[in-house]
Each structure stands twice: as structure tokens, then as C-alpha cells.
């Protein structure tokens, strides 16, 4: 059989028409919106020599900012997974006074300008703020240090987890819980072995989205972080500082490192999700 005949047979086997044009449109759109800007970023770094690149991306201030950005983002996304699940559970399963207000409040960080979030949190947690004036005499400082960064990232990341888990919880089959109860499972066993495996992929997705958003967050963090070099400086701020000093190549070098680390982490999370899906598929 010739190659032409094989290709013709393969084409004939497709049920849905328009694969070629939709694939072409998707690739063109993806290239225009994502790939071309990212490749421009890469090309800009080529103006640096290898030594200059290494020096730009491994300076002590830059390394400290990577640690803070990725550490705080991971911590905030982890906190959001726990409390996002709790808020989603409470909103889906229980009725209480003010439920609709809480439900609407969850979406607030999506709509609120990030600078407003930063100003609000700083006004609350600074030494003369509503909470800060009571916490600081006790030695608890939540603003102008890395704690403030984590708090701002929790604020902006929560809706990603809640809005990802909520529909999955709403669609969860009650019959499975009833069957587990009929088979003698306690409520905790039903949650751990029936409900949790079904919402785990959504939780992971929520974590990935909250984490990705937190890595790139700038507006809310700069107000509350204090921006002290080596202590509370995030990587996006380093990039902005380099741009303000007209060090475009240095800024793009740091941006490329951020891009690569974020991409690898998101790939790992996707692989984990795929493994989890296969694992739960095999368990069924």
C-alpha cells in the first residue's frame, strides 16, 4: 500500500469534518498570542553573552527574589487549597445566613484591581492598621515582610480554588455517598475514599491556577511587601527595577528564568493530574 493510499484511508476514517482548518486556526492563534511574544523574550536575551546571562540571573538579590516568589506562591497556593476546599464545601453543602454574600465575595479578587487589594491589606495589617495595631505589640508583624507577601497571594488566589472545586462538588453523585453509607462507611471514610478522590483533580487544577497567578502577581504585593532587597523583594519587582534602569537584556534574562521554572512546575502539576486520573481510573 502506498503512502498516499494510507493517508487517504486515514483521512476517510475521521468522523468530524474540519480538523485541518481548526488545527490551523488554533496554531495560528496560539502563535500570535503566546509563542511570538515569548520567542521575542528569548531573542532579546541572545544579546547577552553566556557569562552576562548567568551573572544577571544568579545575582544574590535575584536568587533571594526567586526563593521568596516561588516559596510564598507555593505556601499561598497550599493554604488556598485547604481553605478554598472548605469555603467551596460550605457554600455547596450547607445553608446559612449570608451565604449569597459570601458566594459573591469570593469573586472579588477577580474584579478588584490588584493595587486596591494591596492597599486594603496594607491598611489592615500595617502598624497603624485595624489589625496591625493589636498584633505588632505582641511581636506579630504581618506587613512589610515576607508574611505580607504570602497574605496578599492568599487573597488573590482563593477564588481560583473555590471556583474550580465548587462545580465538581455540586455535580458529585449523592448516590455514591449513600452507597458508601449503606456499606458501613463512616462519614469521614466516605469523604476520604469517595468524595475526595473525585474532587482531587479539580483541587490540583485550582492549586496550579492559584500558584501560576501568584508567581506573576505584582500589583497587590508591592504595597504590602516593603520591597527590602534580599528580604521582601519579589522577582516581578526585580524585572521592573531592571527595566526602569534601562537594563532590558537583564530584565528579559530574569523573565526567561521565571518562564522556564513556571513552565516546568506547571508541566509537573499537569503530569501529576494525568497520573491521578489514571490512578483513579485504575482504582474504579
Amino acid at each position, binding site marked *: 500500500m502506498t503512502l498516499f493510499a494510507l493517508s487517504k484511508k486515514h483521512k476517510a476514517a475521521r468522523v468530524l469534518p474540519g480538523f485541518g482548518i481548526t488545527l490551523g486556526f488554533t496554531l495560528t492563534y496560539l502563535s500570535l498570542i503566546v509563542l511570538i511574544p515569548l520567542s521575542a523574550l528569548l531573542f532579546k536575551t541572545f544579546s547577552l553573552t553566556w557569562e552576562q546571562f548567568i551573572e544577571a540571573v544568579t545575582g544574590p538579590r535575584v536568587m533571594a527574589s526567586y526563593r521568596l516568589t516561588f516559596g510564598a506562591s507555593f505556601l499561598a497556593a497550599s493554604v488556598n487549597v485547604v481553605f478554598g476546599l472548605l469555603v467551596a464545601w460550605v457554600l455547596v*453543602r450547607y445553608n446559612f445566613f449570608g451565604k449569597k454574600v*459570601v458566594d459573591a465575595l469570593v469573586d*472579588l479578587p477577580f474584579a478588584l484591581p490588584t493595587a486596591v487589594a494591596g492597599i486594603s491589606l496594607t491598611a489592615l495589617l500595617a502598624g497603624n492598621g485595624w489589625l496591625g495595631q493589636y498584633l505588632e505589640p505582641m511581636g506579630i508583624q504581618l506587613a512589610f515582610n515576607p508574611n505580607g507577601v504570602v497574605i496578599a497571594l492568599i487573597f488573590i488566589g482563593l477564588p481560583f480554588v473555590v471556583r474550580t472545586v465548587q462545580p465538581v462538588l455540586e455535580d458529585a453523585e449523592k448516590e455514591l455517598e449513600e452507597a458508601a453509607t449503606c456499606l458501613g462507611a463512616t462519614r469521614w471514610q466516605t469523604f476520604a475514599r469517595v468524595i475526595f478522590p473525585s474532587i482531587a483533580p479539580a483541587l490540583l487544577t485550582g492549586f496550579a491556577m492559584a500558584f501560576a497567578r501568584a508567581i506573576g502577581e505584582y500589583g497587590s504585593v508591592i504595597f504590602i511587601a516593603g520591597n527590602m532587597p534580599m528580604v521582601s523583594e519579589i522577582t516581578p519587582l526585580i524585572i521592573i527595577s531592571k527595566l526602569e534602569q534601562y537594563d532590558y537584556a537583564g530584565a528579559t534574562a530574569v523573565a526567561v528564568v521565571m518562564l522556564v521554572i513556571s513552565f516546568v512546575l506547571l508541566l509537573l502539576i499537569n503530569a501529576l493530574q494525568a497520573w491521578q486520573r489514571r490512578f483513579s481510573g485504575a482504582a474504579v
Partner: protein
Amino acid sequence: MSGAVSLTVRRAQSGTTEPAWVRYTLIAVALLFMLLFFGLALGGCVCRGLAQRRCCLS
């Protein structure tokens, strides 16, 4: 008869819902979290804004 039916229904429901104290604790923790992170932050910002406006007007 109806008492027996309602008892059966309650027993069946207790298998798929949490005990009341767990329910109230979960609601309280979720509301406290939302109050701390969203309610107070926005309330504080609005109050400060209004206070400054009063200062500016007087």
C-alpha cells in the same frame, strides 16, 4: 407511624450529612477566614477612604 418514618429519614440523612457540631464548626471557620481576608480588608479600606474624605471636606 409518621414518627417512625421521620426517624428513618433522619437516620438515612445522618449517613450523608455531617453531625451538627461539625457543620457549624466548618461554617464558622469558613466565615472567619472570609471575614479576615476579605471583609476586614475591604471594610478597612472603605473606612479609611471615608475618613480621609471627611478630613478633606472639613
